[in-house]
């Protein structure tokens, strides 16, 4: 077994261990940190595969962006030290069985198929990626690039619209007043319907 193979097995054990802990630990903040380690392990796997560009993108976007966003939202929404409620045993067993069967089935299919790796060298450069990304002829990715830019714009506008404060709903006192008003209104409506039924 060569050194690169040993490094690969160490990296994959790290990824799977961190991912498994991220999905099973009951403290949500620890779960986010394990997810962070798992994503760093995946970046290491990309480095091992010698696609350094994707590894850099992985670290910048996932580790620097998404995990930080998730940690922020954990702090905004709950006490991070609290444990999450235990799931019923029936659900855990059922989902573990479903997942194990799915994994077995998929891996049997992978084992049956005979992959013949090409002997050629994988030659990518960032300049090649860039020129193909903005190429409008066949094999170019100019259209998906533009579509993704529209998607990002839509996501940004959507986030702003969702997060926009309606002055009534966020103020606690005003919210109670609104709730009371709504109660009165529903009662009125109920009264009206009763009268109309009579």
């Amino acid at each position, binding site marked *: 077994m060569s050194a690169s193979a040993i490094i690969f097995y160490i990296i994959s054990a790290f990824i799977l261990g961190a991912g498994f802990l991220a999905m099973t630990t009951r403290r949500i903040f620890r779960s986010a940190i394990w997810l962070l380690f798992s994503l760093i392990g995946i970046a290491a796997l990309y480095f091992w595969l010698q696609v350094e560009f994707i590894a850099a993108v992985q670290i910048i976007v996932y580790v620097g962006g998404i995990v930080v966003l998730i940690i922020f939202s954990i702090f905004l929404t709950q006490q991070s030290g609290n444990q999450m409620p235990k799931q019923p045993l029936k659900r855990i067993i059922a989902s573990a069985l479903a997942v194990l069967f799915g994994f077995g089935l998929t*891996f049997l299919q*992978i084992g049956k198929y005979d992959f013949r790796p090409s002997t050629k060298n994988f030659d990518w450069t960032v300049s090649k990626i860039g020129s193909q990304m903005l190429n409008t002829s066949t094999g170019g990715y100019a259209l998906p690039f533009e579509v993704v830019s529209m*998607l990002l714009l839509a996501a940004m506008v959507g986030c702003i619209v969702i997060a926009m404060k309606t002055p009534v709903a966020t103020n606690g006192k005003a919210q109670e007043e609104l709730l009371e008003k709504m109660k009165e209104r529903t009662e009125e409506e109920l009264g009206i319907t009763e009268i109309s039924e009579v």
Partner: protein
Amino acid sequence: MSSVPMSHILFVSTALFFIGMYGLFTRRNMITMLMAIELILNSVNINFVVFNKYLYPDKLDGIFFVIFIITIAAAEAAVAIAIIINLYRSHRSIDVENATEMKY
């Protein structure tokens, strides 16, 4: 590099996918479900890179798919977290069982 057969890398990505599925099935907290989705997307990314590198080394399509998936995952996470925080403001809970009125 060639000392590791391709199926071993596919084993890692498949295992990661099903770990994510397990999290998606068992967790009822929206943020942890979002984390599970991130794991699933990452396992798919590993597959794309490996297939591109081992089977079609003269093309770059796998790398483009990975870049687009990462972009879309970032947008999805941003929108999902905006929705989760807004839901928390109105319901004081981010448990999916308590958000059933969003169904209709």
